């Protein structure tokens, strides 16, 4: 397994394929027979009511949960059981629903943690901080500064992220994921709890990342307006089952999806 695999797939071809994923915690079935594929370069949305298993799905993709059965395929190769570190190395980055930043560290340091996997110097060189170690540090700093410029984080570079307002923390978290230069970016409710302006900013960032950096984006979001506007394809989950998938227009008129969201009359 090398980093190249996901990079080498042509745009529009399948990057990740999930086949018949089952996930259970004891008696609770979080995911039941879910299959879908994410194509390279697209904005792919996972939607569904609360408790539908959307976040579990992301956790399966980046190796944090091990599916009870089913296969995960990156770039045409079966991945089997994997550790989160392995997913990170294959080029998958993610953000969390409840912000998971390193609160005691500055914005800059948080973004620099996104580069940890790419820093190769051993600890003795780091302790001496000389020659190659110093050069490496500066190279990565330059990459991180580009992310800082892109997300307008210059003014809070040195601020500990714990003291930043919610919207900015979400943005820093996106920045940390971007600093990893991922092939696939998993966003877990990036716009939850934001006002309209912040949502517009965030949508703009997501679309720019998709257009300019050609990063594949897998997105969970509750704001239907945003989802319908920015995503290329959508999959809908309800009670751990896939109830629909397709283009935004198809989903909008899908009977099962409407029933799941609005409920079904009993005397039907």
């Amino acid at each position: 397994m090398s980093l190249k695999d996901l990079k080498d797939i042509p745009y529009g071809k399948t990057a990740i394929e999930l086949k018949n994923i089952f996930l259970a915690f004891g008696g609770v079935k979080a995911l039941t027979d879910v299959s879908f594929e994410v194509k390279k370069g697209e904005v792919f949305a996972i939607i569904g009511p609360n408790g539908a298993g959307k976040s579990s799905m992301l956790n399966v993709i980046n190796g944090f949960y091990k599916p009870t059965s089913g296969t995960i395929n990156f770039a045409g190769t079966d991945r089997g059981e994997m550790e989160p570190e392995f997913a990170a190395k294959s080029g998958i980055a993610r953000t969390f629903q409840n912000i998971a930043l390193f609160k005691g560290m500055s914005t800059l340091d948080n973004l620099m943690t996104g580069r940890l996997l790419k820093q190769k110097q051993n600890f003795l060189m780091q302790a001496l901080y000389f020659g190659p170690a110093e050069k490496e540090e500066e190279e990565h700093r330059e990459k991180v500064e580009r992310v800082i410029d892109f997300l307008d984080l210059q003014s809070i570079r040195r601020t500990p992220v714990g003291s930043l307002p919610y919207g900015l923390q979400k943005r820093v978290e996106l920045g940390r994921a971007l600093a990893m230069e991922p092939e696939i970016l998993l966003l877990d409710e990036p716009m939850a709890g934001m006002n309209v302006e912040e949502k517009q900013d965030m949508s703009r960032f997501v679309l720019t990342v998709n257009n300019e950096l050609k990063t594949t984006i897998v997105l969970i979001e509750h704001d239907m307006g945003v989802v319908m506007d920015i995503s290329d394809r959508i999959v809908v989950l309800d009670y751990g089952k896939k109830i629909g998938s397709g283009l935004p227009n198809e989903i909008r008129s899908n009977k099962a999806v409407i029933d799941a969201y609005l409920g079904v009359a009993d005397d039907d």
Partner: protein
Amino acid sequence: MLYKETGQYKSTYKSDHAIFPLIQDKIAFSTLMFIAFLIIPFVINSYWEKAILVPFLIFSLAAIGLNILTGYCGQVSLGTGGFMAVGAFSTYKIMTYFPDLNIMIIVLISGLITAAVGIFFGLPSLRIKGFYLAVATLASQFFLVWLFNKVPWFYNYSATGQITVSERFLFGIPVTGANAPSYATYLFCLVLVVILGFAAKNLIRSKMGRSWMAIRDMDIAAEIIGVPPLKTKLSAFAISSFYIGVAGALYFAVFLGAIEVTESFDIMTISFPVLFMIIIGGLGSMLGSFLGAAFIVTLPIGLKFIMVDLVGLSAVTAKHFEITIWGLLMIIFLIVEPHGLARLWSIAKEKLRRWPFPY
């Protein structure tokens, strides 16, 4: 006005990421180093050496070690005394088996041995956190002290169970043993502290330090961005124990000369004071390690001076009062400034920036 960064532009990432980014800091640090290396060695006497400077340097090293583990990596440890004992006894055994080995090398090897022991006792940290880990490291404290007491091989079967340092020379000057001049022991400790202090600061501001802090702040997120938890925690245990082991080696070989393990490396004489040093100094701060060590080392001396010399209490009464006042100060400190002396310093810097204008 005094501490103004205006006009100091940084045009490279290197200068922006420097240990002392401001010219004022550079001047202050150079002055300090000048005094420490070129003035103090000529004026030092035995009292200053034994009572203040050498213990301060040794405990700074131990505090840096514990700060790496607890302050930066978030793993609470109460085993400092045990690990320092490992450093001390390693030094003793190496001195016995290799009489010709350079003292500098002996001290560093003792550090490495302690690092290995630290990794072993760090293994539970993968499964347990917080208070539970503190209890697990407490076990290492008691086990190690018990071990050095019970197995006669460690103290070369001496009747008293004491270990005594033999004389070792560096550049022809004795640095250990009873004949070592004050300036020699002081400079020996100072050189080690400066070198290891810079090494620690460099580790903290590069990849390794950021991995530690990531694990400390949010271990799940750290794992997902590719920080391996086991390796990172164990590296913190290893490097922290290395520093504590070197401190233990110096404590035995340079400072005390002869020790008895239950007395010298007790939890009350080492583990708790070093933990207080980093709490009072500032968790996750290099400066805090030094300030905390200075505070804890000089506090008893200051209290004794006030109570015996100024107020006129008897030495015994003063000793009893000392512990009470110590505890009281600790509580007051934690309430008033939970982030430690390092935080007070950064507040002072902020004030100095604006002085004499309030806004």
